[in-house]
């Protein structure tokens, strides 16, 4: 698993993106998801159709939903078919999402923020 890899969950069908480098820190892998709706008053990061094959309409990333997981746990969920791998995001999109994460870092759970900071990503 690498930064930029994606997978889709089986229940809600959200696309999850690996934001941090699992090789650098396999204990704190940061993932964020695409969603079409938010109860937040402001959008954190907007992704347009065409930026990834999964995105068919205006899509958002809410950094408050970021998760910080163990790489082994994510691999277990993939093996257990809870998560289905999809195409990785482009380097440009990954960089843009990371840049948004930096500007909205006050919304990230502290563990996710610390992992991204320790890797110099935000």
């Amino acid at each position, binding site marked *: 698993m690498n930064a930029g890899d994606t997978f889709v969950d089986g*229940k*809600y069908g959200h696309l999850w993106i690996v934001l941090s480098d699992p090789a650098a820190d396999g204990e704190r892998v940061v993932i964020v998801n695409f969603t079409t*709706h938010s*109860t937040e*008053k402001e959008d954190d990061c907007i992704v347009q159709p065409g930026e990834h094959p999964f995105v068919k309409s205006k899509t958002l990333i809410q950094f*408050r939903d970021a998760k910080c997981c163990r790489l*082994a746990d994510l691999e*277990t969920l993939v093996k257990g078919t809870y998560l289905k791998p999809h195409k990785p995001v482009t380097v440009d999109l990954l960089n843009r999402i990371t840049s948004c994460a930096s500007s909205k870092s006050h919304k990230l*759970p*502290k563990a996710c923020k610390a992992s991204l900071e320790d890797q110099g990503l935000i």
Partner: protein
Amino acid sequence: MFQLNQRKAVEAAAILLRLAHERIMDRKRLLALLFLADRKSLEVTGRPIVGGRLVALEFGAVHSEVYDLIKGSGRNQPEWSRHFANESYRVVLTDEPEIRALSDREIDVLTQLSDQWMGYGTWDVARATHTEEYNKVYRENTSTPIPLEETIKAVGRGGQKDAILNDAEEKAYFDKLFSPEHALAVKLANALKAKHSPKKTR
């Protein structure tokens, strides 16, 4: 309903107690501040910080599961008891938890509330939880649940009620899906399945 995030409850209580004189606080005051923080967060972001069941008691609105933890009868009591002790009706922070589940934004809400109520007595803070939704459901000498729908309306987010309720369900699913406990359960289930599946014969 937004399910209780016990890790956040531990961290939020620790932050409030850190800001209190000698890291000790009347349990009513702690419960009231947690309620007010959740309500503020729901108003501003559409989500509470701690979540869980809210009930209207005589002295005010409280998180019933956090109240159980303070009384020593919570569902995951050891996690709470590692960090807090009771001195009569007061809660003491005895061991600092690592802050990892809360965000800086949530910490700001807690800190601002603590500042806002600094210098006020416990009963003043408890009375502040006698909000519109509290007054609507409270019945004398009872512990009445406060429906999330009522709080959503009372904080002025009634127009987004369905979206917030759906978000609560979705959040509960993903919190569980990506929890280490779930990954362990899947791993064990896979191992059991492999052990009991018929061996292939040549």
